[in-house]
């Protein structure tokens, strides 16, 4: 485990229950700043549930999720809006904060705190162009004044121009410059995946969470993706957390791997440690097998 002082994301005692089913139990792990951390595990282990909890799409039943980005510490559970407590009566500041998050909180606040994500089943704005997708992602950084936009003031034009430049920049980084003016829904699958990453990057995140980014890509595209992720980490100082089934890629690029099984963290460590961890091997292959780690786990998501 890494020291807690430089963790961009700290998850402590995370529990998630759907009705009577315990999907996650006491999940603990940290994502060190500047790392590529992979979250792996067999199908149904709860990886996407963890993702949805820490990106604010699910409200965790209990536990702490703390994001330390943009120089502030944000508790993901509290920006989603917690229920009021009796003690709020004599703590007006806390009451006010709770009321604010109750009214205006939600998963969008998590993004604003510096975390961007992609989805397992790509969620692009299919009937908008690739560029427009990236412009929407910059919504919070733009001049949103009604009046300025309608009169088309100088500052408004400037803000739009900056947004376009940034959009083109990320298109270039992800090798999509020829697709800028095409409808997102009409792009080939691999390019849609990349566009979704570009769109997430347009929100200026410090932590990028990718849900099975290599699913459905061919080996060559996967290799390129691995290269891109490495570049993002080294040149753009991003931290990356990913769920992935492609063990080849995971072992190659991750600096830390967290293994989930049946809603529990069964192992944490460097790729080499994980490769030889008996608990991981038995989770993937059953208890009898002792030899090696599967190179490819069939991605049946």
């Amino acid at each position: 485990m890494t020291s807690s002082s430089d963790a961009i994301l700290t998850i402590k005692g995370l529990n998630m229950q759907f009705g009577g089913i315990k999907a996650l139990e006491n999940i603990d792990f940290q994502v060190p700043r500047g790392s590529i951390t992979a979250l792996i595990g067999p199908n149904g282990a709860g990886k996407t549930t963890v993702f949805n909890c820490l990106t604010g799409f699910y409200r965790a039943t209990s536990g702490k999720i703390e994001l330390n980005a943009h120089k502030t510490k944000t508790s993901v559970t509290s920006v989603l809006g917690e229920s009021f407590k009796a003690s709020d009566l004599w703590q007006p500041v806390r009451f006010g904060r709770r009321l604010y998050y109750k009214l205006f909180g939600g998963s969008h606040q998590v993004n604003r705190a510096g975390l961007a994500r992609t989805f397992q089943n790509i969620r692009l704005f299919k009937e908008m162009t690739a560029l427009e997708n990236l412009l929407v992602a910059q919504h919070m950084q733009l001049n949103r004044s009604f009046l300025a936009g309608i009169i088309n003031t100088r500052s408004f034009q400037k803000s739009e121009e900056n947004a376009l430049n940034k959009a083109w920049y990320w298109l270039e980084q992800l090798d999509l410059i020829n697709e800028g003016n095409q409808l997102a829904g009409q792009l080939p699958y691999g390019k849609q995946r990349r566009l979704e990453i570009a769109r997430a990057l347009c929100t200026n995140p410090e932590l990028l969470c990718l849900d099975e980014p290599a699913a459905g890509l061919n080996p060559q595209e996967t290799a390129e993706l691995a290269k891109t992720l490495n570049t993002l980490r080294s040149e753009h100082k991003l931290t990356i957390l990913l769920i992935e089934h492609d063990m080849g890629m995971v072992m190659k690029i991750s600096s830390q791997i967290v293994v989930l099984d049946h809603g529990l963290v069964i192992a944490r460590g460097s790729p080499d440690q994980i490769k030889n961890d008996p608990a991981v091997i038995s989770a993937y292959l059953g208890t009898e097998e002792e030899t090696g780690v599967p190179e490819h786990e069939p991605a049946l998501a």
Partner: protein
Amino acid sequence: MDLSTLLQQLVNGLALGSVYGLIAIGYTMVYGIIGMINFAHGDVYMISAYVTAIVIALLTFFGIESFPIILLGTLFFTILINSAYGWTIERLAYRPLRQSTRLAPLISAIGVSLVLQNYVQISQGARSQGVPTLMSGSFRLEMAEGFIQVSYTQLLIIVVALLGMALLTWIIQSTRLGRECRATQQDRKMAMILGINTDRVISTVFVIGAAMAALAGTLVTLNYGTFDFYIGFIIGIKAFTAAVLGGIGSLPGAMLGGILLGMSESLFSGMVNTDYKDVFAFSLLVLIMIFRPTGLLGKPEVEKV
């Protein structure tokens, strides 16, 4: 307000609420199975009122005077014809839109609602219509101060509504058809893979909803006597309110919601103001949506990310 008036209002509310409950079933089942608000459902109810009057007129024309036969005959024909409406509407206006945008079926439903209203208006005239009083008389319960009066038709409404509910619950819980319905509601794609003809199941749900609305339409028409082509609109929103109150997608919820709405509405009109009873019901809808969108018996919706 004394006790007897209060009880009287509650009894009236129970009868009214049973009707809301029966109509709410159509909303709740359709919403449960294809996640769509069938705006035309209130107008299907309106059709049943017309069919009831027409069948009664036909039966009296053929010289049938016995009340039980008229009642059974009317119920039979109204349910039959309304089911045909339910099936046809689903087949023509909703099924082609299964893969369309989210808004499309809703807009189509509004279109169907307009068509039904205008079509009845054209063929039956805009004036309000009525049926003769076939069953009069009432029970009277004397109390310490005042009395409670329960008319036979009110009693009929409550009993038939409960019977209809019981039958439907049995169908859904214990028959093969019911099992298919529940499976389709849980996961349509999986049900399809397992060999269930989900299109047919959805059609059946529309037919069941229309049949229940027919039951309500016949009973209400026998009780109140008059109706016009516009009645479906208001009662439709109210029945939807009942469905939401009970928890949309839940069958017992629809009945519970119906009865609660009926009772609170009749208490409101008895104690506060009759003019604003519709305003009260609609405000209730807005308030439930805000404070308890899952209703009383509904399950919270888990967003699929």
